[in-house]
């Protein structure tokens, strides 16, 4: 009985969400999200990616409950141990539990990825849409600045910035953010140029809308979906750059359990105790793969040229 009423209620929700004539702003918006979710859900690889990313978030949030040991507790008697029931992924050369360090390291990874995304994506979006919509000399100046940033290899520029700012995780984040906005600006500009002369933009211009309003509430919403996809696909690259900086000793400083720095520490014992460097390597690989799969799935759902319209 209760099962039946529950399924009826679920059906009611579905019908409400999929209604072709919504009765309020929120219903229309939620319905749109629900349709996007339905098409996302049918993509199994994307769901796997989402699962990995959610697991990463879960691990980061509940790290103290999941990790069996303090990630920085050194037990020199137990150093460089192989996998065992006490130490699932073994211990490193200071006798620290690698599993606990991986779990706490997920916090750093997430911290880096989120901060880079919320710094770089808005800068790229603002520069790209402004250049694309205003055109003329504004476009020339902004895009030449973008070109200058793009002319340097990303990792080399990040290295130069971190060495100038001083090693540390915050500086690594700033360096990665500064080197990763230019591609977003290019994407946003290209999208803006295709949108700029469309009739619906002419229509708001004829209503007397100012430039800021046109860019912010008419052009930006159409650029965000391709940007979200691109940022998600770049997350793997951001993680790898952060790990690379950590590996070179310019990112997170010891004893922070940053995955790249952990690989770097395991390098010395790679031949005899391979797991010390390999386990954080696998963690980086899985998380990068998760973000890539999620990005691919989001592209199928959000890309204004294919999904999201019907």
């Amino acid at each position, binding site marked *: 009985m209760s099962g039946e009423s529950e399924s009826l209620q679920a059906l009611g929700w579905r019908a409400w969400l999929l209604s072709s004539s919504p009765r309020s702003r929120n219903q229309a918006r939620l319905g749109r999200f629900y349709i996007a979710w339905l098409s996302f859900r049918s993509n199994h690889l994307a769901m796997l990616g989402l699962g990995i990313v959610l697991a990463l978030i879960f691990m980061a949030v509940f790290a103290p409950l999941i990790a069996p040991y303090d990630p920085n507790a050194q037990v020199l008697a137990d150093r460089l141990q192989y996998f065992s029931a006490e130490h699932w992924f073994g211990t490193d050369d200071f006798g620290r539990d690698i599993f606990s360090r991986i779990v706490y390291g997920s916090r750093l990874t997430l911290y880096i990825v989120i901060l880079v995304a919320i710094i770089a994506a808005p800068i790229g979006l603002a520069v790209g849409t402004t250049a694309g919509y205003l055109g003329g000399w504004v476009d020339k100046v902004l895009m030449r600045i973008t070109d200058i940033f793009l002319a340097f290899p990303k990792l080399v520029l990040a290295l130069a910035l971190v060495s100038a700012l001083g090693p540390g995780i915050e500086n690594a984040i700033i360096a990665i953010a500064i080197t990763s906005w230019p591609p977003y600006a290019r994407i946003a500009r290209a999208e803006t140029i295709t949108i700029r002369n469309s009739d619906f933009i*002419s229509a708001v211009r004829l209503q007397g809308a100012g430039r800021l309003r046109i860019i912010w509430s008419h052009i930006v919403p159409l650029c965000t979906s391709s940007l979200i996809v691109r940022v998600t696909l770049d997350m793997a690259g951001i993680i790898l750059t952060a790990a690379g900086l950590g590996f070179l000793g310019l990112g997170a400083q010891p004893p922070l359990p940053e995955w790249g720095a952990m690989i770097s520490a395991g390098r010395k014992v790679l031949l005899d105790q391979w797991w010390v460097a390999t386990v954080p390597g696998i963690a980086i690989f899985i998380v990068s793969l998760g973000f890539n799969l999620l990005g691919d799935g989001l592209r199928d759902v959000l890309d204004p040229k294919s999904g999201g319209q019907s």
Partner: protein
Amino acid sequence: MNGAAQASSMIDVRGLDVVFGKGADEVRAVRDVSFRVPEGATFGLVGESGSGKSTVLRALSGLNHDWTGQVVIAGQAQTPKRDKAFYKLVQMVFQDPYGSLHPRHTVDRILMEPLSIHGFGDAERRIEQVLGEVGLGPSFRFRYPHQLSGGQRQRVAVARALILEPRILLLDEPTSALDVSVQAEVLNLLQRLKQERGLTYILVSHDLSVVAHMCDELAVMNNGAVVEELSVERLKSHAPEHPYTRQLMVASLGYDRAAIDRFEDFGVEG
């Protein structure tokens, strides 16, 4: 036309020229176009694709700044740049209803935008009222454009143009992207709104039957210039003078191989 009619003319265009490009690439899209539309009338601009009729409309609406000549709208001489008050007076309906509505905005948002730009207070009432006027019920209010048919979209576009209560509506081939039965619906809607609100229309079209149905006066354009101005009665009595107009009339009757073989190109010399 007598003096009184001239005094009350809503739109007065004298010697309008539009030039695109510079130097060798220069294209004179509109050459010395002049016409006058009295208040409450519907004026047709007819011509084939590329004849400059839509360019005239874009110059009048303020979308195109590169024009010279004299444009007087509601007694005010216009410069290429327009102020907010102008857009309350003149609104435009675009040709393609699939391209003129923002794909990520609901009908509600589309209609809200002009109200918030101009700081109108009673948005709820206005949106409901204008949706009713264009024959769309409240069930359409929170739909996205992809949930609407072509005719419904064009009704939304008309509602968006009307919500600021303009006195002039510029119609850029408002029905050419719609199928025939829907065309008639939209044209009848436009006729009714014009009577109810005393609007002045400029209708751009390549379809003589649409123009004959809607307009009082019309100008025929070819290669950027007006070749003939005539009343709809003259058009209906098949008595246009310029050979290009006659050619257009033949073309509008349907495809006739023999007639089309006789067509000439009326290029403007110089």
